[in-house]
Each structure stands twice: as C-alpha cells, then as structure tokens.
C-alpha cells in the first residue's frame, strides 16, 4: 500500500487507482462544494465527463480526480478548483 497526501494528510491507495477511487475507497464521496448553492460534490460520472470531482493536484487546479492516477507522494488539495 502506498500513500499520497490529501489535504495535508497521508491517504493510502492501491497502485492503479485514480485519485477519486482512492478517496471513495476511504468512504469519502464529496470533496468540494458548488459555487452558488454550496452543495457538496464528489464523483458522479467517474469517467471524466461531468467535472464534479475537481481537485488540485500538485498545485494544478481543475483536475478531474476520476482521471488522474494516484501516485506516491502526490499532493491533492480538495475543496478547490470549483471557481476556476
């Protein structure tokens, strides 16, 4: 089991999982809020079409967590990217 850093804390993942899969595996289904209604959102389509699962990866905002493969040491910040 390897780890990435999500919001400053280590998050374990299985090699081959996406960032979204790793988050869901730990029971997290929401990791950002919408602009207008501040509704919680996470993974919805799971294949890169809906853009609900946006996160910041290694400083780059607006990344689809369902498409980015998790890598050891990767830094993920949630709750960002929705206003970009």
């Amino acid at each position, binding site marked *: 089991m390897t780890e990435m850093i999500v919001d400053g804390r280590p998050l374990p993942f299985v090699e*081959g*999982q996406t960032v979204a899969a790793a988050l869901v595996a730990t029971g997290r*289904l929401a990791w950002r809020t919408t602009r207008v209604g501040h509704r919680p959102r996470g993974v*919805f389509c799971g*294949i890169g079409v809906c853009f609900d699962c946006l996160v910041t*990866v290694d*400083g780059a905002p607006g990344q689809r967590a369902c498409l980015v493969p998790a890598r050891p040491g990767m830094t993920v910040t949630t709750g960002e990217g929705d206003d970009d």
Partner: protein
Amino acid sequence: MTDPADLIVVGAGPAGLAAAATALAGGLRVVLLDSGTALGGQYWRHPPEHARAAVPTDDLHHGLDRYRALCKALAQHRTSGRLDLRLEHHVWSAVRDGDGFAVHAVDRHEAPRETAVVVRAPRLLVATGAYDRQLPFPGWDLPGVLTIGGLQALLKGGGVAAGSRVALGGTGPFLLPVAAGLAARGVEVVEVCEAAHPRAWLRHPGPLLRNPGKWAEGAGYAAALVRHRVPLRPRAAIVAAEGGERVTAVRIASLAPDGSPRPGTERRVEVDAVGVGWGFAPQLDLLVPLGCALTDGVDGNAVVAVDEGMRTTVPGLYTAGETCGVGGAALAVNEGRLAAASVLADSRATRVPADKHLAALRSAVARQRAFARAMALAHPLPPAWSSWLTDETVVCRCEEVTAGAIRSARADGAHDHRQVKQLTRAGMGWCQGRMCGPAVHCLTARRGAYEPAERLVATPVTLGALADLDEAPAGTTCTADTACTAVTACTAGTTGTVCTQASTDNGETDKECS
C-alpha cells in the same frame, strides 16, 4: 514509429481496438490514441498493466477472450513499429489539415503535467464511444448518487465499490452487469429499478431470436441477480434521493405506462449509494466540429451518419461504435473492423479483407443493429419523466440551474437547449452540457433527437500547453514526414490557466429541433 502514419484512431475501446487491429493487419501504419491508462475503453476498462495483480477485475468482464486477442495483435504491431500507441493522451481537437487531418492532444501520463502533441495522417477514425445519459430527479446531485457507468468504472478500474447498500435505476440492459458486478464484490444491491417492462422486448422477437449471444448474456446476468437475491423491479423508477452531506435514502415509485409515478406507490428505501443511467449519449465532441452529417438515432440521440463502410460524409473521416448509434461492444467491434476495411480499400492497400469476409461482417453488423434498434425501442426515456421534477430540482449540475428556471425559459419562448443555455446558463459550465443536455432538450424541444452543442475544445487544456505549441522552434513541429512529435512540456501548475471548452454554440435561432 518514424514513418508517416496512414491512419489515426482515436479511442481504444472495442471499436477502436478492432479498427486498429484490422488496419494494422492490412499493412497500414497506425497511431492509436486514448485518454485511459490501459487499452479497452469503458467497456473493457482495466487498471494499468502494472497494477492488474493488485486490482483483480477479470470476473467483472464479458468477452475478455476477444479483448485479449485484440491486445495481443496490437502488441505484435507495436513491436514491429507499425503501431504508435499513445495512452493517457487526451485529444482536444481534430481538424482538417491539407488532404488529411491533424489531431491535437495533450499527453498527461505525468498529470497534471501536460505535453502538447499533434498527430497527422491522411485518414482519421473516431471511436470515442458514449457516456451514460442522465435524467435529473430531486436529490440526484447528492454525493453518493453516481452514474451506473461511474459505479462500474470505480469497480473495474480501481476495485472500489462506492457504497455498501446500493439502489440502481434507469433503463436498459446496462443496469444488469452493473448490479451483478456490485453484488459480486459483496455490495447489497437493494433494488434494480427498470423503467421499462421486459414485455416491450416481445414486440420485436425477430432481433432477439437472431442474436442468441445477447440473449444468453442477459440471461447470465439475470441468473447472477437471482443468485445474489437482487430484486429487479420492472416499471419502477428512483424518483428522488434524500440526504444531506451524502445520500441516505431513495424514493422508488411504480410507473404508469407513460412513465409518470403511480399515485400511492412511492416507497422510501435506505441506501448509502445510488446508480442511475438512461441509456447512453454518443461522444461526438471531435466529430461535430469536423462537419460530418448527423442523423436521428432510434434512442433519441443524434448520431453520425455513415455509409455501409462506416464512412462519414467528410472524406477520409470514419467512425465506428456508439458514435453512429448505441449498440454495445460486439457491434462496435464489427463496425471497427468494417471501418478499417474501408480505410484499407480507400488507401488502396495491398492487403484488403476478402469480399466473403466483408459480406459476413456486414451481415453481422445488420443483425446486431437490428438488436440495438429493438433495445432502444424497448427501453425509451419515459415520456412523462419530467413529472418527478420539482421547480427546485437542479438540472444543470455545473451552473446549478433548476427545472423551474428552464420551464420559465421555455415559457418565454426558448424551444431548444441552445436557447435555454443563453437564457439560463444551463450547459455553460465545466461539463458544457454533457450531463444536462439530453434532459434540457427533452424539457424544451417538442420533437427530434438531441443534437449536442458544438464544442471546439473537447477536453480542457492549459493555455500554457497551447502557447508552447505555437512557439515550438522550427524542426519540432509536425510536418507531413513526422507522424507525431511531442512539442514541448508544460507544467500546468506554473501556467495554470485552463482553456476550458470554447463553444461555437451561440444559440442560433434558425436551427429547428427536428
């Protein structure tokens, strides 16, 4: 591969894999691009090669022998140097370029780092598949409500189940493998709500009888559901989801023949995740801007018009699979082969498939399309689905536009999704209407198939990557002699501005919904 390519294939799902294999067998040089980390597309989604042992998914798949045979064929051609395989390449645009095509992609194998790539070839085959079609309902944007494709992608790609007690709903045979897959991983699938009635299939017995493979596949899933004690409810729908920070329950109603909930039948069922899907919407983002003609599909989607050999109306442009009508993987494979056979014939290749082989392919495609047509007719969108919306229900998830706002726009005279977009911003957010487009079309247009907006940028790309493409020094840009040249690297973090998705969709009013 240093020699120029003869063919670019975009999409490595069933259609693209089969097309590439046939074109390579015929002696062509092929560039195959896909955004995924492994061959297979959504249907044969796999974890990347190096991670397969950690995430076993073989038992979740159907037709793996065919997948492996295609992968093996491609591997041989990769070794021989005639296949240039580009995984984790996100194609954001395809344009005419002289007598051929230029395909623009970003290499994201070190995501979020992006490297701009341009590939050129005289012929282009787009096999970009489809994604789940969605109908909104109150609470569908709660965390824990996913598309059924999303539930399956997490399972097949990462070995992860999004919940432990799941309800599924929508229409179409795809509900069955998703339910069976979840159950096989120990998830309690509390109910599968199928809006149609299985009896609808009996109106088209011919295609069913002529496609025994499909029949057997469906029966296999049905047996799996029985084994796992998963109840399948015909003529029922998930009409609402409840919860706060995540979904905690669904409301399930029996449906009248028009799809409206039967009064007094609504039940509350506690769940921790939900999957919904109403058939599929073809992924046409690269095809529409190229100007190929569309035609109305039986399932309510506009699809790409093709001739008998999968040629679009744009010379040199071919398509196969769900882009020309949703019909499943077996049909997609045969269409891919047929499209590649046309590429070989049109390229005057020396090794073209024998006439007898082509005739058999065409016959199989006709038979499988008849099945797809019967499937679409048996699993329509319920005409009265919008009766389960309240005015407060979010329809456009990105811009948070409600059903009430869309109904107001319609009352103000908007009669298609383009005009609704101008008036309400529905379809103007991150996803560019990919999620809400079909629903907004149903809510406003009175007739005709859903034709997606023209999206000039098919996937977000950083302005940095684009700028580097323009500024690449002479000799590193692509010429006709270099099939593919990575231009230069761009770290999205330092040039973080993202060019989201420019759209030419200016809501032209002369375009009737027909």
